[in-house]
């Protein structure tokens, strides 16, 4: 096992470089957080002239974060929806893509390249085209405005990535481990649960993480198929900013919208680092 070399100290240049990267990625979030705490912040002031906390007592209705956390904002509902839809889409996507990836990685059959082409089609087609097509079909099927409809719609842009990720890990997994397990007496289910799945885990985690993040960020498909009946964080946010101004509560909702991804990343990072994967 190659391990990265541990250096005691980074050179000044390396440190500057890392800081610059962090500033570039995190920089835009700073104004967002300030905005979420502001009451009045007019151009070209560097900081808000009036803060939310100063105005809190005087205001009649809830302001800024008070509004975000109040039932009026529907943030809780949108967050729960986002997480439920994301989790369901991820699990379904895995269930569909694991067998597909196994076949694509291990078998040679006629029409394989056509299948591979169709699998990448959603990456090429505009999201609006997919959304409107699905809407037409789903209205007929009575799926428009339902969780099922949105979850199915979310599978379309995520399946291509998931299949690719899982095909790659399946290709790296020789057949001998599964065969050895069978010779040792393991049933098909035992082989899958005890050998295949754990050995594919790095790819499964990567694919699932990606699917969940994509799903929690999808706006257009959710907007079209939710028909206003089901809101998620992206659609809620869009309705808040569509007026053209970004006030403190819109900024607050935006901050909330970044949370599912960050929480998930922190959780899976611990998992990926676990000692169990020393062998890879």
């Amino acid at each position, binding site marked *: *096992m190659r391990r990265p070399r541990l250096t005691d100290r980074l050179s000044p240049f390396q440190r500057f470089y890392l800081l610059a990267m962090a500033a570039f990625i995190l920089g835009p979030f700073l104004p967002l957080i300030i905005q979420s705490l502001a009451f009045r912040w007019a151009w070209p002031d560097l900081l808000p002239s009036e803060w939310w906390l100063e105005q809190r007592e005087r205001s009649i209705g809830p302001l800024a974060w008070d509004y975000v956390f109040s039932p009026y904002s529907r943030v809780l509902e949108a967050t729960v929806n986002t997480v439920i839809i994301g989790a369901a889409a991820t699990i379904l996507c895995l269930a569909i893509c694991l067998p597909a990836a196994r076949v694509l990685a291990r078998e040679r059959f006629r029409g394989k390249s056509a299948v591979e082409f169709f699998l990448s089609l959603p990456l090429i087609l505009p999201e609006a085209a997919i959304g409107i097509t699905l809407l037409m079909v789903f209205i007929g099927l009575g799926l428009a405005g339902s969780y099922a409809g949105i979850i199915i719609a979310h599978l379309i842009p995520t399946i291509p990535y998931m299949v690719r990720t899982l095909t790659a890990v399946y290709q790296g997994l*020789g057949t*001998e*481990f599964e*065969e*050895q*397990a*069978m*010779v*040792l*007496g*393991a*049933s098909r289910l*035992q082989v899958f649960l*005890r*050998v295949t799945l*754990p*050995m594919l*885990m790095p790819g499964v985690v990567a694919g699932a993480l990606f699917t969940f993040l994509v799903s929690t960020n999808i706006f257009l498909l959710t907007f079209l198929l939710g028909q206003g009946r089901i809101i998620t964080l992206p659609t809620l946010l869009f309705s808040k900013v569509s007026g053209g101004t970004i006030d403190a509560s819109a900024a607050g909702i935006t901050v909330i919208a970044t949370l599912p991804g960050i929480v998930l990343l922190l959780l899976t990072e611990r998992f990926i680092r676990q000692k*169990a*994967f*020393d*062998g*890879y």
Partner: protein
Amino acid sequence: MTKVHLSGVRKSFGSFTAIEHLELTIESGEFVVLLGPSGCGKTTMLRMIAGLEEPSAGSILLDGADVSNTPVQERNVGMVFQRAALFPHMTVEKNILFGLSVRGRPRGEMREKLEEMLEIVQLHDFRHRFPAQLSGGQMQRVAIARTLITEPSVLMMDEPLAGLDTKLRATMRRFIRDVQKRLRLTTIFVTHDQAEAMELADRIAVIFDGRLAQYAPPDLLYKRPSCMAVADFMGVSNIFPGTLVAKNRVESAFGQLRVDEQPRCPLGATVSLMLRAEAIDLHEHKEDTRFQAIEGRIVERDFLGASVVYTLECGATRIAVSEPSRRLLDVGRTVWLDIAPESVWLLSH
């Protein structure tokens, strides 16, 4: 202890026939080595016995029972794969226990057997390691323990020592042989290395292009190969054309040579004479020869440590002779070759 019988087994992959009508019996408790060049079908045979591959024709019998339709899981055969195939996400202990764990055996029994296996393969200190933290030899020992713990009826090993260095291979060979003798397991061991085959086997099955060329104990295979291909594969150095002029005489480049009676060959038949390099004696004086003396001159000497191999010129032909390196004869010397009639083996065409 199980008897394995392959009866008329054939295996095709599409239009390619990997195994042609194979008849092979492995007696219970016997150690059989499948020997043959790469691609001759050895792995395919093991896979068919294990149930990972279905024969295109014929049947496989374990103790007389046809298992052709028995799924892999229920055959209870053991197979050690070429590259150990240890589960990388499990410790040595978990790897070894896998077979019992999927069978849902009680904890107490698993503990007990695990200790027994760790004792056999001498891996106590490594029980909590992951495969990536083991050496090649240790990995193979874990793979063997993982198979043995299920008490298979047949132990099969597919070139298990291929990736190891020479010294470790020797140690592992002894280890495998000891374990097999102790447990009296019916064992099928695959290799393309004839020295390895001879050291391990009770009987060797030589396979060329999916056909069984010869099936015999190592000494017989070495002294009495059934055909040129086998002789060649076993590393016989001296093969010359000849004609059988009497029941026990061959005309060859060395003149007439006395041989053992050859009931199999008709008079006047063209044959190949096989002379093993170590069966020929060299004498400095003609009077010391006991059977038939042929004059030769040493043109080359290869010192191999325990033995020394001379290349001699006898008239127009060259012949290799090997003897213990107790004495060394100089290149350029003229000596007398002594050939015992029983050490000449004839291959008919």
